[in-house]
């Protein structure tokens, strides 16, 4: 369960969010561009510091008491896709994914696991390509693979499908759905495509007037 109540300031604009995402549940955050979706997601990841509020995930307190509790992004252990992707320019696709696997296990095991993630997202043939050699859609899927490969307690994905064609979009959404239900973790997906609610079987939460709340039930 991800439970967040926060206010975050960007310049002279103030955004507020009330969000509860259950284990194994996906919430799709929709809203016009510039409405603050990304700021809220970055707050959840620990990249932006809210002015006030609380963020809890499972038994852990990530942010509380006006910042006296403020867990570092790394220690929140989220699978994160940034809108700008932020791939490692010097690493091939499989090394990028292996970077997020880290931990125990030898290089060969990490490589095998990384290749498996790339294959699930249809990138088996591009494992040795660096970001500069990939198309926009391929780069986006490498970023998604890196986020999913991380041993995570939540997924936070900012427009993870925006550069994909219909077929790749549906396939990638299926992988996200599978990971969320396998791991029983909460996921927040920012998207401008309302169709993702169906693809992800997600509840929809709309960002309007700087406020995120008013959760609608999942479409049947």
């Amino acid at each position: 369960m991800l439970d967040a109540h926060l206010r975050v300031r960007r310049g002279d604009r103030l955004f507020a969010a009330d969000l509860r995402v259950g284990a194994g549940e996906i919430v799709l955050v929709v809203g016009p561009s510039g409405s603050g979706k990304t700021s809220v997601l970055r707050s959840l990841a620990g990249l932006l510091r809210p002015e006030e509020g609380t963020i809890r995930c499972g038994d852990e307190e990530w942010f509380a008491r006006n910042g006296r509790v403020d867990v570092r992004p790394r220690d929140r252990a989220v699978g994160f896709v940034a809108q700008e992707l932020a791939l490692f320019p010097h690493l091939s696709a499989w090394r990028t994914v292996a970077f997020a696997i880290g931990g125990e296990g030898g290089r060969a095991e990490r490589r095998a696991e990384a290749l498996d993630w790339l294959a699930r997202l249809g990138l088996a043939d591009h494992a040795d390509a660096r970001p500069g050699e990939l198309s926009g859609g391929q780069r986006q899927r490498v970023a998604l693979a890196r986020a999913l490969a991380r041993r995570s307690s939540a997924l936070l994905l900012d427009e993870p499908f925006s550069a994909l064609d219909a077929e790749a979009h549906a396939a990638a959404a299926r992988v996200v759905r599978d990971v969320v239900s396998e791991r029983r973790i909460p996921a927040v997906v920012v998207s401008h495509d309302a169709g993702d609610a169906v693809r992800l079987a997600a509840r929809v939460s709309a960002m309007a007037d700087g406020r995120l709340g008013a959760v609608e039930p999942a479409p049947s």
Partner: protein
Amino acid sequence: MRGRRPTPFGVLASAALVGVVLALALPLVAILTDTAPARLWASLRSDASLTALGLSFLGSGIAVLVVVVVGTPAAYVLATTRFPGRTLLGALLELPLVLPPAVAGIGLLAAFGPQGVVGGALDDAGVRLPLTFAAVVVALVFVAGPFHLRQAQSAFGALDPAVLDAARLSGAGEGAVFLRVAVPLAAPGLGAGATLTFARAIGEFGATLMFAGSLAGVTRTASLEVYTRFATDFPGALALSAVLVVISALLLLLARFLTARGEVDARA
């Protein structure tokens, strides 16, 4: 169709460029053309020249190693964190670039000399720095180090913060972010900085002379050897100077190449 005529400004600016090239290149070309190849070879084979060049390369090599190992993480902190007094500190660290060499030498003596700020403590511990090879290295680090610090700072400053954040979010600790992401991405800039530092160290003269002296075979580097010879053996001084010109030119070319590569990488 009529071809475009050069504009008056274009002509003036081109003339200025020719002037700059002549002013800078003339002494260098004179050094190279005044040195007969046979004379050069004979001079270079002399023990004093070889020893001096060896000391220059060894001292500069050690200095670059020290500067890279200590200066690179320091530049990373300066480039990627905001703290009060950061601009002031940055300017302070670049001060040795513009100090008169004599002032740098006096500063080193005031710090590490027998009556210096830490020199006394060093003396008590049985360490005497001035007039030793170690003093040469200290002088080179002090005078040439800022070149690397400066270049490394701008290389780290050009990195996309989102990429460093992505590494953290992928589970990397700060040390791994530095070693596995920041350093590889900044590598061309770091290489250029180290090369410039080496080039500056090879050319170092004033601070070394004042702080380390000019003891043949101990602290007399190539540039000090040129100075020693210039009164008694001008052709010999000229020959050694020619070698230094060629070495410096090659190093600067390498630094340029690395900087250009860094800019290409940053755009990719």
